[in-house]
């Protein structure tokens, strides 16, 4: 297994470099010109000669491969570069924003898992009951619903309509980011993220639990007269959980993109808004750093899921 982990990690390096290169190439092909962002309203009074001189000073017109080379060189020495759109070192941007994104995505994932476990078990156990029918229908509907639609709906109903929860931001205007404040503002985005990610997990767990319930060892357990909750939770659930771990790894990219959309809708000060401004302003260093980070998170998530399966299920072997 150690071999597999090492191989996967080694393979990740060229993948990351290629992804970063793709970011630079896509950026160079986009119609955006960073000079407009740099100048702001100042562009309307600046002379053409002056703008050309600033372009040269800032090295904006360097060929994309040269810019990529410079960025890669900086990366090798641990320098992630300077974000032009946020006028901050990239490291500072990440340090300020990634924790908030992790908080949101992490809590959202936990919520999705809890929902999956509770609803998955209940629906499989009482297959065909009213709860099963309601949950299955809702889950299928939610699968087809983009997370930002869900987010806007939740804002309209719970924040604007009923006024129960704040519509956005990290805290109330002017309030300090205390635990209570952040917790209150976290509820709605986490609920949306969790609910939008849960359907796949719920339906998947329900299906595998249903097949587990029909397996011989479960029938055996029932025949021995064990209590129903022991049969379901101790005998059927563990077999059904294994594929869920795999699915979780595979759905990580969805979680990341879902989190980006949710962050934008709720003005959550995570990396999402930085992604947007970096994209519009052709902020290569920030764009590349964030893309690398999310790619790495996805690769690592998939790896962890595989390792978990290896550890949990003695039947599975690392290939090679």
């Amino acid at each position: 297994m150690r071999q597999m982990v090492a191989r996967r990690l080694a393979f990740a390096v060229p993948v990351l470099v290629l992804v970063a290169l793709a970011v630079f190439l896509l950026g160079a092909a986009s119609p955006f010109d960073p000079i407009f962002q740099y100048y702001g309203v100042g562009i309307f009074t600046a002379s053409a000669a002056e703008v050309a001189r600033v372009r040269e000073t800032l090295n904006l017109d360097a060929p994309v491969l040269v810019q990529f080379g410079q960025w890669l060189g900086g990366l090798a020495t641990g320098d992630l570069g300077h974000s032009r759109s946020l006028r901050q070192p990239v490291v500072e941007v990440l340090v300020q924003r990634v924790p908030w994104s992790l908080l949101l995505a992490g809590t959202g994932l936990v919520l999705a898992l809890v929902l999956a476990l509770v609803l998955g078990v209940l629906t499989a156990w009482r297959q065909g009951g009213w709860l099963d029918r309601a949950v299955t229908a809702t889950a299928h509907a939610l699968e087809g619903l983009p997370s930002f639609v869900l987010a806007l709906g939740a804002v309209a109903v719970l924040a604007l309509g009923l006024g129960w929860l704040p519509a956005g931001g990290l805290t109330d205007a002017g309030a300090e980011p205390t635990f209570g404040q952040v917790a209150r503002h976290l509820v709605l985005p986490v609920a949306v993220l969790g609910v939008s990610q849960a359907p796949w997990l719920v339906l998947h767990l329900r299906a595998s639990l249903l097949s587990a319930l029909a397996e011989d060892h479960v029938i055996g357990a029932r025949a021995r007269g064990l209590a129903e909750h022991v049969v379901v939770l101790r005998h059927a659930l563990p077999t059904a959980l294994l594929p869920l771990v795999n699915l979780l790894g595979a759905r990580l990219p969805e979680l990341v993109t879902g989190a980006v959309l949710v962050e934008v809708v709720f003005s959550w000060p995570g990396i999402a808004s930085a992604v947007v401004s970096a994209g519009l302003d052709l902020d290569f260093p920030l764009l590349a750093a964030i893309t690398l980070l999310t790619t790495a998170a996805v690769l690592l998530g998939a790896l962890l899921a595989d390792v978990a399966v290896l550890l949990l299920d003695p039947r599975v072997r690392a290939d090679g």
Partner: protein
Amino acid sequence: MSPLTRRSVVVALCALPVLAACSAPSSTSAPSSAAAEQLGLADGYEPESLHPLLGYGTEGASRIFDGLVAYDAARQLQPALAAELPSPSADARSWTVRLRDGVTFHDGSSFEAADVVATYRALLDPASASTETTTYSMVTGVSALDPRTVRFDLAFPYAAFPHRLTLGVLPSEALAEPGPAEKSPLTTKPIGTGPYRLAEWRKGERMVFEANDSYWGGASQVRRITVVFATDDNTRAQRMTSGEFDGTVLPPGLAHTFDGRAGYSVISHRSADYRTLMLPTGNPVTGDAAVRLALNHAANRQGMIDALLMGEGEPAYTPIAPALAEYAEPGATFAYDPDRARQILQQAGWVPGPDGIRQRAGQPARFTLMYPASDTVRKDLAQALASDARAVGLDVRLEGLGWEAIEPRMGADALVLGGGNPFDPDLASYALLHSSFAADGFNNPGSYVNPRVDAALDTGRRSTDPTARAQAYREFQRAYLAQPGMVFLVFLRHTYAITGSEQDYRARGYQPIIEPHSHGTGWGPWWNLEDWKVSP
């Protein structure tokens, strides 16, 4: 979302135990206006940096920085970091500024001539890549005559030069190393001498200003200002309604939803913020003198103001706002007269074709009008103008684009342009209409060339005699009117929603002002918060 799914979403959400635990009844702690020492404002625009060399607070609208001079409520320059107004040499080519004593920066260092020299030298240094260099291109040298006196040397006599001295002054220590301003720590951790220091900036969310107790003008009574950033106008209005802010800037339509609502008022400020139609000389239709004149008579300016801006604007005919009464030529207007417009076109040989569109020698009277796609006011004005033009037989095709796409086409296609300055006619008109700036970036993008206009603008720029200047700018307006190069449409009014009443605000120290193009919570009713009294 169908009603069914929305209901199921609500059901699903309500089922969450975590939600029930946190859904305490709404007790949003709205900052009460009784706590007058604090103010919570919402702005639709977040500055990208707080570095004066990158355009922050260049017209003096900064709480963090002081310039050598600053504007008062009557738009007159008053000494700030200068001890008295700058005095010109006889030829107005060098300006001497004596500096105020006993001023300290937020970091405790004392303010001296070296700081002024360092700031302006860094501005002019190409290595800084400052965005403001063009407006200071006449400066050839800055030197300290002694620790309390600075002299600026100019390439030519420039009467409006003191208006350029509103730039925020930075401590020389922070500018010791030449290099791009965007990489300086000052972009996010500014050090100024102003009435407020930056206490916190959570990017994308809010900025907190705290009163500077050692401010040379005396410590402000409004101790703490929180500016929350919410770019969407509707969101801002919504959060204002829920009592989250003490005030915000809103477009006229949204601002007036607060009319008559208990506890709220609307304040609107006149401005020199014009919207104009830039007409490229190089285009055979928009470059034609008759078409330009006819468009100016065909545009129903008051109609646009009433229908699109809820009355919050004034008709514009030249870049000189009526607010600049001492310079404005009273008769410099174009009557709204479609018949006259048709007559002008007819006489110039533009005759109606079979499709109703005029043409001359096979050239249809048709041009493209571009506007920045994200700006709804400009889009509305462009549509209104297109319909007014259609009524006199001119075909205007509209295109909403990004600035990247607009810039390379400005020589061939018309554009809805915005800008304006209420402080000096030179700042408002020279780069916009003088031939020396023709097609120089976004300055005079239509390449308007009029020797009479050039001569008047030059006289106004070089003379320091107020009467001679006033005469020159009146002549400039007459010359422009005889041969217009643009279609100035409106000077916008900037509208703000506040909690409480305008009387309360006035009692506390608010004074109405006339604003430039830039506005927001740094301007508006809050432009002089440092002078407000907590208890009237």
